[in-house]
């Protein structure tokens, strides 16, 4: 950080402290509200949802071969295949939003061309694992699912539209240095089992209590900790067998977790936390691979957690907890602008989403606050679809790669399609 940055921060902190009307009851309520919101996240979403998701994101970035994916987006790739790969590869390539733009530029200038590049640019930030998991947990599985499906489907459409609009302008291809794929150490199914065991832990640990106390969903809920434990066992087996994790610490962790579960059956969070601590201990002391996994998990946590913390505080301050009117912005305004499911509400949400900058994952608490203040479900989805893919800063970078005309066309397509998707979703959930 440069010195004049620090000076600016200091001066603005001083001006804020000088002028903010802390004795106003509305400001006091809003500040309190931001901490309620933070507590809500800390209690409900961090340990069971975010932490496992960070581990999965770390595993993806270390163990999924990016080189293998890039093969399908290179200059020689089959067109049809490259659209499909571009639309879904965001999940494995773009856990960190800073990798999206270079990859986009690469696919456009040296690889498969503007169609797949636009598809990737659109879907990449929207369907990363962390974003989908947190959306589903906080905003409900319908929005989470709609976000994932919407992002993939619209990636295709936007990619194709861009390719058709600019079909005459394919540039000459440049020579590309393709990443050299290392020899895979494991078979694909082994990696898949390992990832699946973690996804299983994530899904079942977060299984919500259904409304009625019978039926299949409730049966799953009632046994969810046993199922989670079984996935934990599978996970332990995979890391010892295929990732050279040391056997003794792994077994000790397993035994400790089991004992804790027997002694404190009413405190699943304690047991879960002990399990996580055990995993960190085992991976830190075992092979190079497990170390790099835990390191990359940590670097994601370090990068994303502070942003999310800030996002939750800001959302709580501006909008208040869902269902209250304690935020600094009155609920009436939100309901008037983006309530219901009108064309205007969806369009407005798309435009705001496209221009506003959301740091990784912060769109989730913000949309949660907006929904609580009376935003319709359709506009919420529109905001989620248009939001992470674009922001004013990223538009400027995209413009330097594509030129002004193509950038404007791309932005218009995103806004238009997000509006339509929002209206459709709002209509379906009514």
């Amino acid at each position, binding site marked *: 950080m440069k010195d004049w940055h620090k000076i600016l921060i200091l001066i603005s902190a001083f001006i804020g402290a000088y002028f903010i009307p802390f004795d106003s009851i509305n400001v006091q309520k809003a500040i309190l509200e931001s901490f309620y919101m933070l507590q809500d996240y800390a209690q409900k979403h961090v340990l069971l949802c975010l932490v496992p998701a960070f581990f999965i994101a770390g595993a993806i970035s270390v163990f999924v071969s*990016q080189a293998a994916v*890039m093969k399908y987006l290179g200059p020689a790739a089959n067109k049809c295949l490259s659209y499909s790969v571009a639309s879904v590869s965001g999940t494995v390539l773009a856990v960190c939003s*800073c*990798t999206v733009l*270079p990859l986009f530029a690469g*696919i456009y*200038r040296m690889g498969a061309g503007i169609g797949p590049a636009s598809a990737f640019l659109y879907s990449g930030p929207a369907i990363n694992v962390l974003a989908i998991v947190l959306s589903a947990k906080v905003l409900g599985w319908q929005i989470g699912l709609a976000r994932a499906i919407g992002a993939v489907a619209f990636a295709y459409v936007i990619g194709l539209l861009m390719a058709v609009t600019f079909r005459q302008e394919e540039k000459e291809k440049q020579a*590309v240095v393709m990443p050299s794929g290392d020899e895979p150490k494991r078979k694909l199914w082994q990696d898949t089992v390992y990832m699946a065991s973690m996804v299983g832990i994530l899904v079942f640990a977060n299984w919500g209590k259904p409304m009625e106390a019978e039926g299949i969903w409730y049966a799953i809920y009632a046994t969810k900790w046993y199922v989670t434990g079984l996935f934990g066992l599978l996970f332990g087996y995979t890391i010892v067998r295929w990732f050279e994790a040391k056997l003794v610490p792994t077994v000790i962790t397993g035994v400790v977790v089991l004992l804790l579960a027997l002694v404190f059956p009413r405190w699943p969070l304690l047991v879960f936390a002990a399990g996580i601590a055990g995993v960190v201990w085992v991976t830190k002391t075992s092979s190079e691979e497990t170390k790099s996994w835990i390191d990359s998990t940590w*670097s994601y946590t370090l990068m994303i957690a502070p942003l999310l913390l800030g996002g939750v505080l800001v959302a709580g301050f501006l909008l208040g907890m869902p269902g209250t009117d304690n935020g600094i912005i009155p609920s009436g305004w939100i309901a008037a602008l983006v309530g219901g499911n009108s064309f205007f509400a969806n369009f407005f949400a798309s435009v705001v989403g496209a221009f506003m900058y959301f740091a990784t994952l912060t769109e989730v608490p913000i949309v949660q606050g907006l929904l609580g203040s009376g935003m319709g479900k359709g506009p919420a989805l529109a905001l989620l679809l248009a939001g992470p893919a674009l922001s004013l800063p990223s538009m400027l970078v995209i413009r330097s790669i594509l030129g002004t005309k193509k950038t404007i066309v791309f932005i218009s397509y995103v806004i238009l399609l997000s509006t339509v998707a929002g209206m459709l979703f709002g209509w379906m959930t009514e």
Partner: protein
Amino acid sequence: MKIQILGTGCAKCIKLTENAEAAAKEAGIEFEIEKVTDINKIMDFGVMMTPSLAIDGQVKSVGKILSVEEIKKLL
């Protein structure tokens, strides 16, 4: 000798820069490190994935963080 790190400035790129610096110092060679952060310049190297490492304008590795040992071998 000129070492160039290609990347937009995220955590991975910083890590690679540190490793490259350490490697060059251990190998005891004269060097300067340049961070290339402009996407269009990165593209001019023909690189699609960041962080990447180039030595004297030649791309040596793409899309991964090399360890200090690995970079020493390249130097």
